[in-house]
């Protein structure tokens, strides 16, 4: 084989590998947009009683893109909304790599936010740098604890993390309601809210809303990649996920690793919660309504549990959130369409077996855990994809 031929076959190989990795997420996204377009037209005609307009989806998507990337401030708001999705998504992705289906990012996110507020309130008299650090640490520690508990339960008794993390989500919701109306209530606030984070608020460094949490999230991407692919601990995490029996044979202790991985996942989701409360809302109420924790599962899946893929998926979801408002204003399509598209993406991702058939992608037996495998294994033992 000549040098140029070898070069050509190398390029072809890289392209093939990239295609194999990105084909399914890409098709899921495109299909979701197409079905979303049908929903836009139908709901406009049937619900809003408008006349039929075939170009409405295009103007809606254009308004969405414009709202997400059309100006400096639009981009900043996209990044602000990307931040918690990215951090929590990385946590879920690391769990997937270890074969763990962590549905608890939502609870870890909420408790991380609580931890950050508690630390912020406690350090009100300290200089901002100390208060901010303490508040971020508080979020990470409480989030990590919230992730560690299901990890411990699994390691000790084998309780499935899907069940325990869902339960921890409910506990987090109730705990939040109690904490806000009890130990951390701003005296006299109706409805009850926590005091403001005050000096621990994250400084705004980009535009009107761009807090430094954005940088924390994007720095976490190479760190997570480095952890997974360059350290022995990351190798252990991936080994346990890909083949727990072989990992045990290799001298790895799967139980300890499960606890560690769940703690890391909780830490990242907790940091996401801390960044949200310290960077955006500055205080919490009893409901603190958000779906970041659940969206981050879709983000991790869409990114195939690869930190770089997770980053791209988080930006996409952040952009959709940022563009939803402008879309409603400029194209008259309700913001909820974004939820529809996200749900469709998840649906098409899970149905990836069908795509693989259609795209003639070879299903690989015992492949590395990128999320789909973890889910199919969790629910249907050894369901071969």
């Amino acid at each position, binding site marked *: 084989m000549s040098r140029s031929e070898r070069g050509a*076959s190398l390029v072809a*190989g890289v392209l093939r590998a990239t295609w194999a990795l990105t084909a399914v997420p890409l098709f899921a996204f495109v299909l979701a947009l197409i079905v979303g377009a049908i929903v836009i037209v139908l709901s406009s005609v049937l619900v809003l009683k408008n006349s039929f307009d075939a170009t409405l989806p295009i103007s809606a998507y254009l308004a969405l893109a414009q709202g997400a990337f059309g100006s400096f401030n639009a981009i900043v708001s996209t990044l602000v909304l990307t931040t918690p999705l990215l951090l929590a998504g990385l946590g879920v992705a690391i769990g997937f790599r270890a074969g763990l289906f962590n549905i608890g990012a939502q609870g870890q996110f909420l408790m991380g936010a609580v931890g950050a507020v508690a630390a912020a309130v406690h350090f009100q008299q300290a200089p901002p740098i100390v208060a901010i650090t303490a508040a971020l640490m508080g979020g990470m520690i409480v989030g990590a604890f919230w992730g560690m508990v299901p990890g411990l339960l699994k390691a000790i008794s084998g309780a499935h993390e899907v069940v325990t993390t869902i339960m921890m989500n409910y506990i987090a919701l109730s705990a939040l309601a109690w904490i806000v109306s009890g130990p951390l209530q701003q005296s006299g606030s109706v409805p009850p809210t926590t005091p403001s984070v005050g000096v621990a608020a994250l400084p705004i460094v980009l535009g009107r809303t761009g807090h430094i949490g954005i940088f924390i999230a994007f720095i976490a991407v190479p760190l997570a990649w480095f952890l997974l692919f*360059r*350290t*022995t*601990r990351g*190798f252990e995490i*991936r*080994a346990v996920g*890909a*083949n727990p*029996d*072989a*990992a*045990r*044979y*290799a*001298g790895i*202790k799967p139980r300890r690793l499960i606890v560690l991985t769940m703690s890391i996942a909780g830490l990242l989701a907790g940091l996401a919660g801390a960044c949200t409360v310290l960077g955006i809302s500055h205080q919490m109420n009893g409901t603190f309504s958000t779906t970041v924790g659940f969206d981050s599962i879709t983000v991790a899946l869409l990114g195939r549990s690869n930190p770089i893929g997770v980053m791209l998926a988080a930006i996409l979801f952040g952009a959709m959130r940022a563009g939803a408002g402008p879309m409603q204003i400029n194209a008259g399509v309700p913001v909820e369409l974004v939820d529809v598209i996200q749900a469709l993406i998840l649906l098409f991702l899970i149905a990836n077996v069908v795509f693989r058939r259609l795209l003639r992608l070879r299903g*690989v*037996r*015992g*492949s*590395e855990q990128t999320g789909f495998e973890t889910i199919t294994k969790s629910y249907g033992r050894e369901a071969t994809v």
Partner: protein
Amino acid sequence: MRGITKRYPGVVANDHIDLDLQPGEIHALLGENGAGKTTLMNILYGLAVPDEGEILIDGKPVNIAGPSDAIARGIEMVHQHFMLIPVLSVAENVVLGEETMANPVFLDKSEARRRIRDLAGKFGFELDPDAKIESLSVGAQQRVEILKTLYRNAQILVLDEPTAVLTPGETEEIFTLLRNLAKDGRSIIFISHKLTEVLEIADRITVIRRGKVIGQRRPSETTEEELAELMVGRAVLLTVERGESHPGEVRLKVEGLHVKDDRGNEIVRGVDLEIHGGEIVGIAGVAGNGQDELVEALVGLRRVAAGRIHLGGRDITGVSPRAINEANVGYVPADRHRFGLILAFPLTDNLVLTSYYKPPYAHGQLRDGRAIAAAARDKVRAYDVRTPSIDVAAQTLSGGNQQKLIVAREFEGDTTLLVLDQPTRGLDVGSIEFIHKRIIEKRDAGTAVLLVSAELDEVLELSDRIAVMYRGKLVAFLDGRTADKNDVGLLMATGGKVASADASGAAS
């Protein structure tokens, strides 16, 4: 099949292969792992599309685009790993996909039962149509697989290593069945590595090497040695020269070992064993008599219920797999996909699976990709692992090359003890010869070797001493050079006490 060619990136799996099959013929297909047998059969069964060439049935070219086309033309395949549903009955498995209905809602089970009895009767074997698959022996399950193909009226049967999982007795039964099928005018393609079996059963033998047909022989006009040479491309020693052993001090000492299986039943029931450095001790036994559990206990993967294990004078009872690994114990597990390899990981990671955490492969928490790759390149070369690159996933390699990967990793360095569970299962003669030579080399370098194998010939060929395992105990020790195969076989089946009740109990 005429001029079949199939190319995969970087390799020609089939290179203008011609193969003809007569009615009523048993045609053996012989070749090393990765020679292209499986690709060829996948093309015949419609699982792969050839780049060139054509398939003719009864002289007419046919297009086989998928397994359903193949089945419609009477081509059936029995895979090495059975495709049966354990919780369903024989009849339910057989009719699966081909159900005869009594009415639009219910299956016509009595019709299915009748046809199954007829077919079984016609070809001279017994099968209860209502037995659950999970209650059947492996041999009986294989007969169900074959019955399934007959139920669909197969005219061409492809059997992929049908004897790999069978005991000698079961193999004989399958052979009788295959001969009856051939007498009935059906054609059989028999894929195997085992030369003796091929010579016994086949009417014609086609040898494939590196995607090409190398030769065709009739059993009457060839020998095992010639076939092995055709397969591998050079003269092969079918039995390695084991030479004299020079046992040193006691290396492994097992006292009164009891181990439980996954269901909590005691399956190793008081094993006493000593292995000296520079000595190979083989354990012979019918599968399921506690060999696997004994081995897993020795390497720390299974809890010891009672008893002690000493390695070189140190008590290693109950220590972790890593501690045992650090004591320079090499372990080749019986199930290479479950324990031996992480199939999704590249060869590099698999070659350092038990040493990834220490220098030179890691410095502190940091992995050293360059050192790992360099070591992988060395091992791949030294152990002749055939692979396009060290970065491909282990699952892309053939079984023999996967096994070499494990051997390359576990035989590395100054091993004190090697625990080998089925080290050559499913491998071709060339790979077996290679691994056997390495085992002897290890012994001569002073390593204590424990060999567990379902292949009695392998135990007899390599072992300096043979221990027979029966129902969780080592019932007899024999000299490996003088032991008689029939005697060992009898001990395996009866545990030494020739009592008919006992023998039937072991078989069930």
